């Protein structure tokens, strides 16, 4: 009986079962009602895959792997329970990097294992190392930019594209040498592998560093896809179906998210990756025919307008995350609803630092998910809305995207708040947004600026309502 559980046929059947659980888990993510159970289904698939592997005859020593498992478990539990919801993008980037390095190491371990690898396995090993390395160092750079350890500005070196393409060619030569062992490079196999790892790490850095902080949602989604590809490729190294299926699912998911983010910014993926967008250079390209003046408003006056409003639309951006204003925003929303006003939240796909970032923060603050809307849902009704409250968002409400052909964001789908009756813009100062582009919304006739920290401003509004 025990022999059966150790047999490869049992393991393979269990791996298929685990794949089915992953698929069902993702399927259940299609609705917020079933999503949490879906995640548990997916997690149990993972548990089954791990337990079955541990039961295999091939595993002869447990002390190292158990120590590593326990250590990883502790780190994972601590990191996931201590992280603040606003820091979620950084954490996801970091975890993603760990997935990449794990796949890379699996490839390396297989390569230095004395049992000879087949031709196909050698190709798979090279590919795993390449993608895994790029995922790892790229994710670390994304982590650094998101947590502001390193500057969010695009770092463009002289001759970036030439350096990148020569590195890529060099990496391909190393890959060919690994596969065919021609000996032409006059290096041992192990040194070739080592140089390849260093090259891929460098490639990951050079690919991510030129991308501005505002484009990080795209980068995380793309790196997410890479980590899936690396896992899938590791599946070819060890001839294992579950790695291939799970990796492909993740790869597809990352690609879809990347595509959604690019569409939401009206830019191609190559423009995001190599455009160096979000630097200081783009601000000078605006045509400078902006007319009007900034009209500040006090919280007291803003309260009087809100009190009389029948419909309010809240547009959150990264500024809401920075000032941790989501809880007071929800409180204000509830007070408005008690006052007979209809409150909705419009969330742009690229608001925040990762796809769906704002939704998570509002969910944390107990905002019901059925009042969260997408730009396409709210834009046609914009004229009927009394007050739009823009909280720390900038580029996603910029009317230049529709009106100014010279603007770098021209053509990007935005939330057209300027068509509402009144717009309140909560902002610290008149500084340009993360993308460094001027925003004529602030000068429009119906715009009122509520300067100061978003959380304090909204708290003042809340206390006005209560008094």
């Amino acid at each position, binding site marked *: 009986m025990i022999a059966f559980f150790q047999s490869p046929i049992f393991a393979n059947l269990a791996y298929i079962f685990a794949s089915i659980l992953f*698929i069902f*888990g*993702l399927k259940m*993510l*299609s609705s*917020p*009602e079933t999503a*949490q159970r*879906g*995640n548990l289904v997916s*997690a149990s698939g*993972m548990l089954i895959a*791990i337990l079955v*592997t*541990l039961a*295999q005859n091939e*595993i*002869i020593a447990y002390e*190292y*792997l158990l120590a*590593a*498992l326990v250590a*990883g*478990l502790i780190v*994972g*539990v601590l*990191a996931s329970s201590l992280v603040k919801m606003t820091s979620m993008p950084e*954490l*996801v980037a970091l*975890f*993603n990097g760990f*997935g990449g390095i*794990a796949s890379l*190491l699996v490839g390396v*371990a297989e390569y230095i*294992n004395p*049992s000879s690898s087949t031709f*196909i396995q050698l190709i798979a090993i090279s590919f795993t190392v390449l993608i895994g390395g790029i995922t790892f160092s790229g994710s670390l750079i994304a982590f650094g930019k998101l947590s502001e350890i390193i500057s969010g500005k695009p770092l463009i070196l002289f001759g970036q594209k030439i350096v990148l393409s020569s590195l890529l060619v060099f990496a391909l030569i190393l890959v060919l040498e690994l596969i065919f062992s021609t000996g032409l490079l006059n290096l041992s196999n192990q040194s070739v592998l080592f140089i390849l790892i260093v090259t891929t790490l460098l490639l990951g850095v050079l690919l991510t560093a030129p991308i501005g902080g505002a484009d990080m949602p795209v980068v995380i989604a793309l790196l*997410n896809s890479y*980590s*899936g590809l*690396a*896992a899938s490729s590791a*599946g070819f190294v*060890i*001839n294992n179906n579950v790695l*291939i299926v799970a990796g*492909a*699912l993740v790869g597809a*998911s*990352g690609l*879809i998210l990347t595509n959604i983010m690019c569409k939401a910014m009206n830019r191609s993926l190559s423009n995001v990756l190599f455009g160096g967008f979000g630097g200081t250079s783009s601000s000078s390209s605006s045509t400078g025919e902006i007319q009007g003046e900034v009209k500040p408003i006090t919280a007291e006056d803003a309260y009087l307008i809100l009190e009389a409003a029948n419909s309010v639309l809240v547009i959150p951006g990264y500024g809401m995350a920075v000032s941790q204003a989501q809880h007071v925003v929800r409180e204000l929303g509830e007070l408005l609803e008690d006052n007979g006003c209809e409150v909705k939240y419009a969330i742009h*796909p690229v608001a925040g630092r990762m*796809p*769906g*970032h704002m*939704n*998570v923060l509002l969910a944390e603050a107990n905002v*019901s*998910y059925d009042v969260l809307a997408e730009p396409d849902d709210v834009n046609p009704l914009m004229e009927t809305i009394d007050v739009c409250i823009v909280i720390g968002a900038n580029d996603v409400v910029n009317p230049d995207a529709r009106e100014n052909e010279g603007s770098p964001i021209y053509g990007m789908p935005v939330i057209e708040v300027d068509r509402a009756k009144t717009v309140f813009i909560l902002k610290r100062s008149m500084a340009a947004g993360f993308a460094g582009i001027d925003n004529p919304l602030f000068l429009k006739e119906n715009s009122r600026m509520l300067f100061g920290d978003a959380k304090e401003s909204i708290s003042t509004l809340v206390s006005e309502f209560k008094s």
Partner: protein
Amino acid sequence: MESQALLVLLVFVLVLSIFLGFELINKVPSTLHTPLMSGANAISGITIVGALLASGGEGTFSSVLVGTFAVFFASINVVGGYLVTNRMLKMFKKK
């Protein structure tokens, strides 16, 4: 199994899974994109299967050592990824 036949089978599985992935993920609403990402990220930790085989299997000291590090990183990815996704999804409520 003959290695060519195995390769064809694995590629077949890969291609079908990619199509399946596109179908599944297209149905996820934008409000759940962050949990989708962290959940998918946890799934990519499946590479832990390969890591366990390298760490606990026959091999040289160096291949076991490399495998052990792989187990460590992959288990952070798996455990952390699923827990953090659960933490987020728990918050999505309808009133």
